[in-house]
């Protein structure tokens, strides 16, 4: 069981080897990759920024939850930050389990939680030279005003529940 935020390229083959164990019958590897277009715009690359200590803490927590929920410790989740080119992996997740259904479900759980909870942002660089933070209105905060409170409540109640399950030393 391991998780991390890194600026270096992620070696997927090494992750596959790392989760392998004689008791496992299935391994599922997920790679999230920078692609050449998003919502119809041509993309040259993406810069990922993180609130790194919190992202590390949340990612640790996600992997711990996954371990408890799917009964396997052979899990790794790594998120890369910094400037990535088209075709480079921003996130790689490996999950191994005696049975395939749980390996798939564990993998899916981790990526969905990562997308929902990890304090990481991406700025797309477009073919026309402009850059834009994805999912954030540049001038108004209208989209955020509506969605943030609901998201915050969800996060807050989730934190309470998980804090009791997986206490993490307070940074203070």
């Amino acid at each position: 069981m391991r998780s991390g935020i890194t600026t270096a390229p992620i070696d997927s083959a090494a992750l596959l080897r790392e989760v392998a164990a004689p008791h496992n019958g299935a391994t599922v590897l997920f790679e999230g990759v920078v692609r050449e277009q998003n919502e119809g715009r041509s993309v040259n690359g993406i810069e990922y920024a993180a609130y790194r200590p919190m992202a590390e803490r949340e990612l640790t927590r996600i992997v711990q939850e996954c371990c408890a929920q799917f009964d396997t410790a052979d899990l790794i989740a790594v998120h890369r930050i910094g400037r990535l080119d088209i075709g480079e992996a921003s996130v790689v997740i490996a999950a191994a389990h005696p049975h395939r259904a749980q390996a798939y479900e564990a993998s899916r759980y981790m990526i969905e939680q990562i997308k929902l909870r990890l304090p990481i942002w991406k700025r797309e660089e477009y073919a026309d030279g402009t850059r834009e933070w994805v999912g954030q209105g540049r001038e108004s905060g209208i989209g955020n005003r509506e969605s943030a409170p609901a998201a915050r409540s969800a996060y807050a109640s989730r934190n309470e529940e998980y804090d009791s399950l997986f206490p993490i030393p307070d940074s203070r």
Partner: protein
Amino acid sequence: MIVTALLFASYADALGTATVELALNSGATIADAIGALRALPGGSVLPSSPLVAVNLAYADTAQLLQAGDELAVIPPVAGG
């Protein structure tokens, strides 16, 4: 009391900084801190009730702040 506010992504761009030291009255809540941030130049981009974390954990804006807290104002996340 002094609370350190962290800004990220579009919020940091709008306020021109990633860190703001806020001087708040004792008994101030996260909502009070957000109000102070929104009064700064460029601060109007912040939602009145944004997603926030205190000392690395997601928090509710009604929560009381302590001297030395690290308050992160979190734009919509886009990891993965």
